[in-house]
């Protein structure tokens, strides 16, 4: 049994079937890439995994238990979801990195935040920068750091490298590798990027709500 699994997962909006009977499994510390055309249901699938949507039928299992049995908030702290065009909160980078501490009711660890910034090629000097002065790539990296300030068990990345320049993409890839190898974080990466698709060891395709394994162990 995988760390995160879906069984006969379906999601409908009215009469339209967005996700059709998806059986999916990812093991601990694995990196899985999901691709597919726009509007095929990839983000909906990611949101179902992240417990941001409730399946119409079927279920998502995390560490052997239906995610309905978990408290949604504590589940999302273990299975963290990052979006393509994130909204940065407040005015400064600091406020964004403080957010995970605030919701966990813990005091902000500045040294830890600086170390985290360094994993995405930023540094202490960026902590008090205004979010309005950040480039698109920097915004995405700061947003991603919010997901890993407290290391989750699973990281779901929904097209987080779309529209980024090569340097920002490299930083994001470096960060993913770091958390995957050092902290055994399972990564589910949704992407359109040709390079990422080419390099993916485990690749799935979602087209018209149906998932197919393109490349994998099997």
């Amino acid at each position: 049994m995988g760390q995160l699994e879906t069984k006969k997962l379906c999601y409908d909006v009215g009469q339209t079937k967005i996700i059709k009977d998806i059986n999916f499994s990812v093991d601990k510390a694995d990196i899985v890439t999901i691709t597919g055309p726009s509007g095929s249901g990839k983000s909906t699938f990611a949101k179902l995994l992240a417990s941001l949507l409730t399946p119409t039928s079927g279920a998502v299992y995390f560490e052997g238990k239906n995610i309905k049995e978990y408290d949604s908030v504590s589940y999302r702290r273990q299975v963290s979801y990052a979006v393509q065009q994130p909204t940065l909160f407040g005015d400064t980078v600091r406020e964004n990195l403080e957010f995970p501490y605030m919701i966990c009711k813990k005091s902000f660890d500045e040294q830890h935040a600086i170390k985290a910034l360094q994993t995405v090629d930023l540094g202490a000097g960026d902590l008090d920068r205004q979010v309005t002065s950040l480039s698109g790539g920097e915004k995405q990296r700061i947003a991603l750091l919010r997901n890993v300030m407290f290391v989750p068990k699973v990281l779901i990345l929904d097209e987080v490298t779309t529209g980024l320049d090569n340097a920002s993409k490299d930083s994001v890839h470096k960060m993913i590798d770091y958390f995957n190898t050092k902290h055994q974080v399972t990564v589910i990466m949704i992407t359109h990027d040709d390079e990422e698709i080419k390099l993916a060891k485990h690749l799935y395709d979602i087209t018209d709500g149906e998932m197919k394994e393109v490349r994998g162990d099997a």
Partner: protein
Amino acid sequence: MHNLIVSNTALALTGVFVLFALWIGYKQDLGIAKSLIVATIRCVVQLFIVGYVLKYVFKIDNWLLTICLILIIIFNGAYNAKGRSNGLKDSFKISLTAIVTSTIVILLVLVLDGSVKFIPSQIIPLTGMIVSNSMVAMGLCFRTMSSMFKDRRSQVMEMLALGATPMMASKNIIRDSIKTGLQPTIDTAKTVGLVALPGMMSGMIFAGADPVLAIKYQIMVTFMLLGITSISSIIGCYMGYKSFFNRYAQLIK
């Protein structure tokens, strides 16, 4: 009261202003004729009914009847606030809780400190003021919350995805909605007496009361309104935000 002489003929003649509004609506093609006529008829009928009912209730001076009338005003206020809620789930329950709480708190303070007496002629108009202001504040809060949850949907969802509780993810929306609910009362308090003489004060002066006594009552009413809108907005928003989430802490609207 000797200053107040409004004959039926004089009252009917003021109807010319309604005709003027109708004419403007027709000339400008505003399409308001029907609602203007309905509003005028409702205003006249409602006020006449209320006038005669109040005359009877004041004359009887019975505490049970007074409480019944207070309850009618409260239920009516909650029902109207529900109508302004843009379909917010449980809006009647929320409005009722907010209106009942603000009415009880304000009336208790005013009666206990001796500012007003528990007699129908004082309690009923005051309850009307409390409920109508509470209703307006909640209507504003509900509408603001609905539009903010729509506009900031992705931000709220991102916060949830990071492991925030619905309360934490809604914190800014709740704060901004409370501010919106309070704003008209704060703005009115800033300009009271400078731009307009408020209804109660004008009414007392019309009725021949000493203007200094009238301003004292107006100050009391202004403070009371700030209290009402604060209580109602806080209760309305803190209860209302929950309607935007399901039991799995997912954003549903």
